[in-house]
């Protein structure tokens, strides 16, 4: 049976999980629903190319399938999926022992941080566009929260569920990460 994205567009995430457990083909819908944003997330956090990101995503979804019964309906499915993809990406980076570089991210991130802090972006446009390599100099624990908050637009609760850390810790970490990022960006 071929299940297209169209045929499951009326199903919410939880219904899709139940259907998938009954019929594996529905699992492809889940994959298709999250594929673009997760691929983008893997690339943002690791800086690796599309082909390797695809491999990580495939491996992550095999893990998601194996652990599908563990999914806790009190969580958002997206947070749970992000958690698995995040962990898979981190272990890939650890094996590879290197991050890719993506300077476009720095520009986008800096702009979003300034907007969040209600600071005018136009005045600093030149500085923003010249922000290079700041993320590469940040500790990974800062980089991951900044990406989740300012690029993936996740809430504190979602970040807490993805990284498995308390919400208070998320808030503190984001605040510190923002300060370090801005300091480095202003120097660069």
């Amino acid at each position, binding site marked *: 049976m071929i299940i297209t994205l169209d045929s499951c567009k009326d199903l919410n995430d939880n219904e899709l999980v139940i259907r998938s457990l009954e019929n594996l083909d529905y699992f492809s819908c889940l*994959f298709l629903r999250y594929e673009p944003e997760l691929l983008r997330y893997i690339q943002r956090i690791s800086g690796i190319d599309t082909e390797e990101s695809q491999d990580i995503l495939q491996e992550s*979804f*095999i893990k998601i399938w194996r652990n599908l019964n563990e999914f806790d309906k009190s969580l958002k499915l997206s947070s749970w999926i992000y958690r698995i993809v995040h962990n898979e990406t981190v272990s890939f980076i650890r094996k590879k022992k290197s991050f890719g570089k993506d300077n476009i991210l720095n520009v986008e991130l800096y702009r979003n941080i300034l907007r969040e802090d209600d600071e005018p972006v136009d005045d600093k446009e030149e500085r923003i566009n010249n922000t290079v390599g700041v993320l590469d100099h940040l500790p990974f624990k800062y980089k991951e929260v900044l990406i989740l908050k300012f690029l993936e637009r996740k809430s504190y609760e979602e970040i807490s569920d993805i990284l498995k850390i308390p919400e208070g810790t998320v808030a503190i970490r984001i605040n510190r990460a923002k300060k370090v990022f801005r300091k480095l960006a202003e120097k660069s």
Partner: protein
Amino acid sequence: MDNSTKLIEKIKEQQVKPISRWRFTFKNSVFWLIFIFCVLFGALAFSVILFSIQQVDFSIIGHIYHSWKEFVLAMIPLFWVISLVVLLVIAIFSIKNSKKGYKFTSPALIGFGTALSMLAGTVFFITGGGKWLENTFATHVTQYESIQDRKSEVWSMPENGTLSGIILSAGDETFELEDFKGKTWLVNYSDAEMASSVELMDGEMIKMTGMMTSDKTFEADKIRPWGGHQRRYHGGMNNK
């Protein structure tokens, strides 16, 4: 072949099956059981600590030691304090690994676990759980140095001004005392300050501070019942 079809093919080819729900439930329950078990045993350890504190007569022992630090180190039931800490660490580790454990900060979990153990420990202590556990260990674990053993050591140093034991016979100004090592002493208590709960009669277990005047004589300056404030003990060490 698109990526979703590739994924489904891979799952089928590798025959990957979802792990059953009960295994996850079981794993989570184990973490919670370890937490409950550790908090309860931590509570028992805390009740023994309370019991040991109750056994110390702070009002008169303080002057024997050069400092409070030295005194605390001598009297602290290290075994139970270490047990309590280890059990709390295991309890916090297990709850952190449970499904929703990551939502709590470590200080919150430490505070919660400690408060729970202290609360339940106080209840155990009031209901006699601490004394029972201490006695059970003292009876069945040979390497274990009981609180009473430690207490009798502290109170059996006549050269340092402490003496304890059972009264054999009492006169107007002196009484005969057999210490816990079986040695007989003649104690002069004419100038001693005596707790109202002490009755100088045969078989009474007491402890005292004072000064050793010779190999077999002691001059008491403060006398208390062996059991601490208002707690009289009569007979042999089995009654402790």
